């Protein structure tokens, strides 16, 4: 059983500080939905509002169509997985997993049965008697998931649960979380600052910055069609070249940047004279002049060889560098440090967006 979650013009204030500004969202039942943003962007506040630990200053949370106002976290059909997991250290794995059932008055035999099923599901069969401290990081992770699933929530909320794990395990747990979600079929709301996690696991992603939801879309759209300068600079690597629109013709626009006029797509239909930022992804650019493309010349600052690809950092406008990624099979010649190179890209791979704050490096 899953339920959709509706955020209806949610605003959360702490004193003078507004953590979340007018967030409106409709998360569908059974969806894997991620909130992606840097720390302090308000994503955890949204999660706590959904779970019931915080009341929104304005607006309403509806789960499965039911308004949650005045309903405490212990009465909501949600379960939360904490960033530090918050397993009960004085209880065994079995007691941890069945705690939610115990407080609901489920008898011991039934609890044992459920725990065995869950331990089977999370691939820890027969480990119920162990203490939490005897488990590895990944096992604790899975016990936390089992503990949350034991109460059969309609919505599972996950607050950066993978951040404490090392890289290998994190990537493994991504797949595992996704398959658990598909198996139980309930709504997952996932909070992360790691775009890799958000893009690989989620059906849809909401990118947040400074308490504002910048864009809600599936991972591919967030990467290929960012709506704001923040999203373009936060999700994936991107080169930002600010300037003024000098010509707008149909789908495209020309931006007068520090490197002269450069062309890119203009989805916001910016007019001439508008302040804009032209974004070109490192993998979309090449280090050789080519026909029908925009190009500019600049000096190579450093070259970083990464095996399957090479990152070339060039002098950009101001302090920011321009990065171009050269892949092995591209046939591109990798320039030396100090050389002057021509950076070129196809105009349809350049993106002109209205001026706005960028993600901090």
């Amino acid at each position, binding site marked *: 059983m899953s339920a959709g979650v509706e955020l209806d013009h949610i605003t959360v204030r702490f004193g003078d500080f507004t953590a979340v500004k007018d967030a409106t969202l409709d998360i569908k039942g059974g969806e894997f939905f991620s909130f992606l943003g840097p720390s302090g962007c308000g994503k955890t506040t949204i999660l706590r509002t959904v779970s019931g630990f915080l009341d929104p200053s304005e607006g309403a949370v509806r789960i499965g169509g039911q308004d949650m106002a005045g309903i*405490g976290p212990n009465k909501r059909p949600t379960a*939360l997985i*904490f960033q530090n997991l*918050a397993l*009960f250290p*004085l209880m065994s794995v079995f007691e941890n997993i069945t705690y*939610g059932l115990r*407080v609901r008055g489920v008898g011991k035999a039934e609890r044992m049965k459920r725990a065995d099923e869950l331990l089977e599901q999370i691939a820890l069969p027969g480990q119920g008697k162990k203490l939490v401290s005897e488990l590895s990081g990944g096992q604790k992770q899975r016990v936390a998931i089992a503990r949350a699933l034991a109460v059969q929530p309609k919505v599972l909320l996950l607050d950066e649960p993978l951040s404490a794990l090392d890289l290998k395990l994190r990537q493994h747990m991504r797949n595992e979380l996704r398959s658990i979600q598909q198996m139980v079929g309930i709504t997952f709301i996932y909070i992360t600052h790691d775009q890799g996690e958000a893009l690989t696991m989620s059906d849809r992603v909401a990118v947040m910055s400074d308490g504002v939801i910048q864009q809600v879309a599936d991972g591919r759209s967030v990467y290929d069609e960012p709506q704001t300068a923040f999203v373009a600079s936060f999700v994936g690597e991107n080169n930002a070249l600010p300037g003024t629109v000098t010509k707008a013709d149909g789908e495209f626009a020309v931006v007068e940047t520090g490197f002269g006029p450069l062309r890119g797509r203009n989805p916001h239909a910016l007019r001439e004279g508008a302040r804009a930022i032209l974004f070109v992804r490192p993998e979309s650019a090449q280090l050789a002049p080519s026909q029908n493309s925009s190009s500019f010349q600049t000096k190579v600052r450093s070259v970083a060889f990464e095996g399957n690809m090479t990152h070339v950092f060039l002098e950009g406008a101001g302090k920011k560098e321009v990065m171009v990624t050269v892949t092995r099979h591209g046939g591109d010649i990798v320039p030396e440090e100090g050389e002057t190179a021509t950076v070129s890209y196809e105009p349809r791979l350049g993106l002109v967006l209205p001026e706005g704050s960028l993600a901090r490096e």
Partner: protein
Amino acid sequence: MSSRTLVFIVPLVVIAFFWLMARWESRHVKDASKKGYFERNGKVLGIAFILLVAFWTVFLVALPYLYMVVESFHPKLPPMERGGPNDYLTLQQYGSFFVSPADGETNWLHMSTFFFSILISIIVTAINFTICYPLAYYMAQAGSAQKVRLILLGLIVPYWVNEILRAFALRLMLATKGLINNILVAAGLINTPIDFLGDNVGLYVGLSYAYLLVMMFPLYNAIESLDKNQIEAARDLGAPWWRIHKDVVIPHAKPGIASGCTMVFMFSAGALAAPQFLGGTRTLWFTSVIYNFFFQAFNWPRGSAYSFILLAACIALVMLMLRLFKVSLGETIR
């Protein structure tokens, strides 16, 4: 050699023990990165440390009590006869707690006083826990920093007033013609004043208040170290508030609870001022009995014997409680 002089050999043993430890360390710890005791501290400072520690353990901790232990196994004698033929080792002082030496009858008075003191101390401990637990929880987990500071100030500042003044001030409030009775009578709630002091209400209040902080701080420290997420996790899993306390907060705070309860119980059982000034006229506190042996009857042997009976009983009770609640002694002093 008399048993009294024997006691004074103990310090020599302690000093020798320390010296041997230092010697052993310098000889056997060959780890090049770890210097020996004297290499680390130098000869002068090294010897000074040993002497200071020896002085502390010997003269301030071990000797006084050892001396009292020895005293409690001797008969009461005038100073002239000490060390004489009548000065022998005896259990009669301990026996006098059970059977009165004056008339050979069972010593009901002292025994009932003893059990009364223990019982009241247990009640006071329970009262203190009931008061302190919610407050400590609020301060450690719920309250804002500013409010917590205010509460702490409110808790600590009254202890600047000395114990005797506090006890007499309470007496004024609780006396039959005191403020509380006057208000109750004036409000028409009661016709005749309640004898708070005679009914030991004053004793409970005075003792509880005297050792409130002793309960407060271990509880506060213990609850404060609990990860807030644990509480929220329990709540998120559907636990009502009382279950969160029963399943998460109290098990975590158990060592602190044990520590606070142990200290309040020990202090209450050994209290002197509050029971003397706030107890009812019919109330006799066991420490008052001990006090009287020392200062009224000049019977130091019997006084020390009674003291050790109280100490042994308190330790036994505390150990029993720690065992019952599955807390190790080491945990309580963490």
